[in-house]
Every structure is written in C-alpha cells, then in structure tokens.
C-alpha cells in the first residue's frame, strides 16, 4: 500500500477546490482510487482553503500523516507556509508565488513574509521546490487566464503526478467541463504545461 498524497493550500476564490476536482475526476477516469477532502471553512470570505487528495488510496482515511506528502501545491505565497508540517524528504513542492495581501498587511500594520523566507522554509523542511512565477500567467484575448488551471498545467509538467495521470486526460476534462471557456482555459492549462520552472 503506497498512496500518492497531495496537499493544496490557497485563499478562498483562487480555485484550490477546482484543482482538486479536476485531479479527482482524472483519477476516477484512470481507475485510480481517490479520496478528496476539501476544507472550505470560511473560504467565501477570503480565508484559508486547503485540500487533501489521496490517490491509490485503498484502506486509508481522509487526512494524510504529517511529513509525508508526495506533492504540495500552494496558490498563495504566505499560505504556502501552512503546509510546512506535511513536508518530508520525498515531497515535491510547487509554489505559485501569487501575493494576496490581507488588509492589515496592505496597510503595513501586519507582517507579510518575503518570498526568500518562504522558499527557505520550504527547502529547510526537505522538500524539492518548484517556484512558479505569477508574472508568467498567459493572457487570452487581452485578459489574464485562470491561474489555477495554469498552475495545474505546471504541476503536470514538473511533478511526479504525471506518472499517475496524463495531461491529455486533464485537458479533455477541462474542455468538457466548461465548453464556453474552452479556449481560454486550455490556454491557461497549456501555458502551465509549457512553463519551465526548473
């Protein structure tokens, strides 16, 4: 029994749960057992959102043990630190360096961590870090695309998840799920696939 455990963190509204949904659907289509535990909490009001996905799960519970994630994905720079307890020596960490400032931090009344410190904490915990630059987000018809799909593309291009799921299958699900936004969404996903983090 070896599960492939994914931990995703971000802020409500960033599409963390959509990433989880898409990975779950792709796993189901590939006949891979999956347990997907999203934590919505107060997400609608800009709070923390996290999700745990356990692929190849047979007889396991919804919450993964600490220090043992295979893959961690963070959609926001500061929230990235919330996943630290799940990092172990075999963890791949894909960090999308988007900064979503809480009001107090925006006003300079509260601290917000520097990128270098976040990256250092992740690497100190023993994970292999892939940093994805938000400025690399592609545009479609003059507007920036959905960054969660861009990040999912970068996940599929760079991490061990590609051994379990195929990018083609995910692209197909994206196209079917939102037919009206197909072109824009595939621009996002393919942009991630072609984004060379390493």
């Amino acid at each position, binding site marked *: *029994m070896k*599960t492939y455990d994914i931990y995703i963190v971000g*802020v409500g509204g960033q599409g963390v749960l959509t990433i989880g949904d898409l990975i*779950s659907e792709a796993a*189901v289509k590939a006949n891979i*057992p*999956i*347990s*997907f*535990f*999203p*934590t*919505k*909490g*107060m997400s*609608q*009001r*800009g*709070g*923390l959102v996290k999700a*745990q996905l356990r692929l190849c799960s*047979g*007889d*396991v*519970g*919804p*919450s*993964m*043990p*600490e*220090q*043992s994630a295979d893959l961690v994905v963070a959609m926001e720079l*500061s*929230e990235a*630190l*919330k996943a*630290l*307890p*799940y*990092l*172990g020596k075999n963890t791949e960490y894909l960090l999308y360096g988007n900064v979503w*400032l*809480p*009001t*107090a*931090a*925006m*006003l300079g009344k*509260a*601290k*917000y*961590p520097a990128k270098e*410190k*976040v990256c*250092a*904490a*992740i690497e*100190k*915990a*023993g994970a292999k870090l892939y940093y994805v630059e938000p400025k690399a987000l592609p545009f479609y018809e003059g507007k920036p695309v959905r960054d969660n799909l861009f990040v999912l593309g970068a996940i599929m291009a760079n991490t061990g998840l590609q051994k379990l799921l195929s990018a083609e299958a995910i692209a197909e699900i994206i196209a079917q799920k939102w037919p009206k936004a197909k072109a824009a969404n595939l621009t996002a996903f393919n942009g991630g696939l072609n984004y060379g983090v390493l």
Partner: protein
Amino acid sequence: MSGLNVAYDSLIGFAYSGTNGGMVVYVADDPGVTTGMCEQDSRGFAIMSDMVMLEPATVQECYDYTKFAFELSEAIGAPVFLRGVTNVSQSHALLEYEERLLPVEKEPILKKDIAKYTKAGSAICTAQHKALISSFAEAEKIIRVKGLNELKLGKKGGIGIIAAGVSKQYLTEALVLANREGAAIAEENISTLKLAATLPFPVQELQAILQNCSVVIVAEELEPHLEREVYHLAYKLGMDTKIIGKMDGTYSRLGEYNAGIIAQGLFAATGKAVPAVLKGGITAGMELAAARPITTCSGCPHRGTYMAINAAIKHLGYKKDEIMVTGDIGCTILGMNPPFHTLWTEVSMGASIPIAQGYIQAGVTKPVLATIGDSTFFHAGIPGLINAIQQNVDLTVVILDNGWTAMTGMQVNPGTLQDYQKDPCQQVDLVKVVQGLGVEQLWLTDPYDLAATTKIMQEAIDTKGVKVVIARRECAIQATRRKVDYGKVQVIQEKCTNCKVCVNITGCPALVLAENSVYIDDSQCNGCGLCAQVCKFNAIQKEAK
C-alpha cells in the same frame, strides 16, 4: 454540532418519548476546527440521552449507515444519531449506491398516546425512562447481529487496538508506518476492534479484546468516552491491562487524527520511543505566515452598519472599548474582526439580546448595544427582545437585515422577499413583528447611507428604553446574483492623497493599494459607495444611478 446544540432541548424530549417512524439525527463534529465552532464531541449528547451513535468513517459508510440508522430507529422506536466529522463529511469518493427508495405514500399517522408524548407526571416520566433504557439495550443486540463492529483477535497477550469512527480508517496505514519506523510489530500479535457504533458501548467486544491483550490502545478523536468505558470494564474484570489513549497522555483531546498520530500509540504499546518523523510535522517558519482574518464581503451591507456603530460611539464621546456591543451567530459576527472590532461576544443563536440585558441589569451604566442578523432574530432573537421590553431596560438592539440566511449558503428565511418564498410560504414583515412586540422606538435605515445610519445610531443610543434599529439592505452576494446594479465607483487618481482612510475604515477587499494611491478592483466592487462616503478629499466618486 451547533445545529444540534440549539435543538438539544427538544432532542432529550424526543429520546424519552420515543418515535413512531424512523428518526435519524445527523450531526457533524469538527475536530481541528476548520469552520469556527466549538471543538465539541457530540457523543456526549448521545450518552446524556441514551441514544445510539453511529460513526461512519468513509463516504460509503455514510451512505450505508444512513440507511441502517433508519432501520434501527424504526426497530427500537427511538431516534438514532449518525455522527460525521469534518474530514469524513466533506470528503468526495466513489460510491456504490442503490436505487433511491422513497416512502410509500401513506396517510400521516395520528396517534394519540398521552403517556408517551407528554411529560408532566412522575409515573409517565419514569415509564418513559424505563422504555428508553430497554430500547437502548435492544439496539445493542441489533447492532451485534448486523455486525457493524468488527472484532479481529490476534495472538493472546499481544497488542489490542480499539478505534472508533474515522480513526479505524487509519489502522492499516498506521501499522505500516510504525513498522517502517522500527516498531517491529508482527501482524499476528495485533487484535483490532473497529467500531462503527460506539453507543451503546459494545461491552462484549470490548471485554473480548481486553481479555485477549496485554496492552490496549484506544484511538478516538476528541473526548475519551470509549476509553473511560474500557478502564471501567478492566476494573470490573479485575484486569490490570495497560491502556493507552488520552488518559495516559499519548493522544490529544484536540484536533483530528491521522495514521502518524495513531502510530504513536503503537510505539507507546511497545515501550519504544516515538520516532521524530511521527511526532507531527515541521512547524518552523509557520509563524511567518500573515494573519488572514475573515472579513465581510465587498459590498456587504453589514460593513455600513459597523462603520455607523463605531462612528456613533465616537461622536457621542465614548471610547470604543467602553461601549459593549454583543454579537450573534451568522455573517453579522464578522463585525468582531478588523477593521471594525465592534463586537465583544458570540455565544449561541439569539444570545446577543439577553447577554446585553444581563450586563445592563448587572449595573453597567454606559450604553449597551446588541446586534443580530434578520434570520437569527426570527429564529431565536424574539424571546430575548420580549424579555428586554418587559423588563424595560435601556438597550439598543440593531437588527442587520440583509434578507437572507447568508452565512450558511443563502437560504430563504421568514423575512426574505415574497418572490423567493416557495409556495405556500409567505414573507413575514420584520417591522410589524418588532412593532407588534410593543417597541415604540424603532428606526429603519439603509446601511449604505453612512451619515443617516450613524445619526440614527446616535439617536437610538441616546434614547431611554428598548430601541430597535433595523439596518436593511440586501446581502451583496445575492444582490449581485440578481444583477442589482448600484453603479460604478471610481478613485479619481489626481485627488487621492493615499491617506488610506478608506481602507482603514471599511476594510473592503475591493480597495487595493497602488504605489501612490488607492484603486478599486472592479471585479470585486459592487458599487455600494461606502468608501466614497469616508473619503475627505472627494477622491472616490460614485456615478449617479
């Protein structure tokens, strides 16, 4: 769980009377607190009311046990608990399901049985208690026949693990982890008792595992209800079996468990030190994360109400921290967070008004305010207000009327517009309700109009007796869904001095700081215009509608 807390008064009565048809009470506890409620263990309620407690551990079990819970309830004539925890209740997984069985259409049963369904009388109550105890015992038999609780005995003298609910789902993984880290536990030395039904306590199975093992681990999240029963049984059996759980300090009463945590018990059972990799994760660096308090949505009308309350307190010459403002359940409680910091308390549905009254009657002479949302007021605020009117206290009650039950996902409440009331439901007029109670000092205001609302708050606070201010404006999320257009709000860049007063006072997520000025994120702004009303330089302008 909070839903059960407010229903608990009735639940005890139901349990003691018993039921005619199947009655299943679903409750979800939140170990680890992801939703901001008390980290309580509702199994305590089941103990209090002698009710069966089923604890599914997977999505499939949630489905299967729901069906069984109804069958069991019908068989014993008593309500049955089905308890989820957050990570089970919110999980998604593949499910095998049957075709949905709908109740065969029948006439409602009108059964008059005064001795069963009333309580006033010693003989009646004693008989009901006796019946409850006997139905509870009957449930234990049915659960055993059904085989819900899975006992597997290993070699005598080995390690026993009793795991309840979601904890049983971690046993296999925990053993793999423990052995990977050097616990060296042979599988044949392990006895397991996986519990799906924790109450009534599965006494026979607990005794069997106690008698088979030299050490017993009890893995259950939150409170040590089962563990205490295991100690109790060990005492009765005259056994000095080593018991590992919360009461020896191995496991915590806080938070949710996982395989790593359960594995710590396996190390405790072998007497070996727990390896660092199983002692939780690395936390160094987490303290750097920015605090992210949840706030009211952009355009939320409650923002205007809290701004007005804060301004009124200031204009009347009080310090913010000397005027008590009680809060209540729902979106309205977000007034506790920055930048408002208006609310002092949150207890339970409707408690804002009686708590405020209590402070006044205890001798607080400065003004006291109570705030409550419209649905919470309809649900549980009215009795408190009646009491305040009867006692004629000097209290200002602010009802934040956004027309919806927003926090829990936008349900229709009695005050929601008639257009959204499903036939045959009808809208109840909040103003008439308040007037009907005898409130003479009543103001209706639009929280998007800051000056008017502030003036009304001041007037209300300065008036004697029970005063009610209804701050009425539809929930911004719902108004946006209905495509209500409040017009565009813009920052005139040349006029903006970057003083940030707008951000400081409103805390609106649609206001963003650029290098030398503030700008408005059009994708978030709904045009409420509250920020424009606090700008001293007329730098924020709302287009006329």
